[in-house]
């Protein structure tokens, strides 16, 4: 197994901050906007972005929720056993809001499709945007693209992109994992 670190330490932090500044450009004080992290790994990105935004905009109320998409996936009955759902925690109204969905890695785009469906259960948003930390280019199964991108990566299907977080995993890091061939 070969690990290639794509981003870590200060550069990781600078990327997060750049994403926050780009969000502020479009969402001003966030009075009509909400952040939604997609379970299981997108919630750490959404929490981190919300934390940074609160530092930059101490006066604003930054609303952030977790969305589970398990029941909306398109591979149900196509795996050995059903996936165990995670918690959805959205304690605000989405209706009429600008929603910024966040996931750590954008790959096939299927998760995002499921998330769009899942979000409908909470109302009709005025606008939906997508923010991703890592965009694995040229690997989409459906036409989805992100509005805000941390880094772009060219990878092949057998590789994995793993994002770890300071708060939960000990360090900020994006790693490209390749299985070495025997």
């Amino acid at each position, binding site marked *: 197994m070969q690990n290639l670190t794509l981003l870590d330490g200060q550069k990781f932090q600078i990327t997060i901050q750049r994403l926050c500044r780009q969000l502020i450009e479009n969402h001003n004080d966030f009075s009509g906007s909400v952040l939604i992290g997609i379970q299981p790994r997108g919630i750490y990105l959404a929490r981190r972005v919300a934390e940074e935004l609160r530092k930059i905009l101490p006066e604003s109320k930054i609303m952030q929720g977790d969305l589970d998409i398990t029941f909306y996936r398109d591979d*149900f009955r196509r795996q050995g*056993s059903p996936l165990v759902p995670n918690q959805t925690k959205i304690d605000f109204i989405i209706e009429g809001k600008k929603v910024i969905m966040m996931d750590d890695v954008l790959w096939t785009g299927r998760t995002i499709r499921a998330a769009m469906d899942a979000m409908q*259960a909470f109302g009709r948003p005025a606008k939906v945007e997508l923010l991703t930390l890592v965009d694995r280019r040229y690997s989409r199964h459906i036409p989805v693209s992100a509005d805000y991108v941390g880094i772009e990566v060219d990878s092949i299907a057998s590789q994995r992109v793993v994002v770890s977080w300071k708060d939960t995993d000990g360090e900020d890091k994006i790693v490209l994992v390749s299985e070495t061939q025997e």
Partner: protein
Amino acid sequence: MAGLSTRHLLGIKDLNRADIELIFETADTFKSVLNRPIKKVPSLRDVTIANIFFENSTRTRLSFELAEKRLSADVVNFAASSSSVSKGETLIDTVNNILAMKVDMVVMRHPYAGAGIFLSKHVKAQIVNAGDGAHEHPTQALLDAFSIREKYGDVAGKKVVIVGDILHSRVALSNILCLKQLGAEVMVCGPTTLIPKYIGSLGVKVEHNLIKALNWCDVANMLRIQLERQDIKYFPSLREYTMLFGLNKTILDSLDKEITVMHPGPINRGVEITSDVADSKQSIILDQVENGVAVRMAVLYLLAGQTP
């Protein structure tokens, strides 16, 4: 992540503790789905489920049907009373004819014990037992235990007494197996004639005095007297049964501690439980009904998710 260890839900007997906990964790999520403005998820959109009821039912049938619809499954309903069963068709033929119409799962209630097990050996579809005679009623036991877990945080270590017609009750057997599996202490209470002779071998206590049983327990599950299953008289009169085993507000208030009252329904008000108890704040009867939909959604979701 492993799914359920079984392909059908025929009884609690077939479930291990991890299965039950998986069902509860999944039901937690479905309960939050049921509290959303849009209470429907698309998971089972390519699954067809037949509800086959050879016996009357209100709650269970509605609860299953709602659970199926909330999961976006296609649902067909079948009641034996209005079908060709009365013309002499066998159970396997009836079900195979339904399956020929491309049905994936069968939810069945039947007056004979073991009907679900029999069917699971002879037809291709996944079977969910919605009550078979005086044998098992697994989803009722799951929702009862889920309601206790919701009220107290955990089932382990809780003392639960099941009062009434234990002999004819499939709810009692499934409840005992489920609660024991989760680490609760279980007692049964009722007239000697309505307590099976060897019930102690299931690891439950037996008590014939209602007040003593209630003072022991944290939760009392009051069962209905199943007159339709009693071919002989098991006690002199309903009035006497009520005097000895009926729960009223005076008894409830006289206890040392505040216990929780449950009932699987349908209630015979004034027989096993009085109206003021059924409607009191100690009763979680309607929570049980609400949880029933979430628990059944979890069961159907976990079973249907197994690769066909």
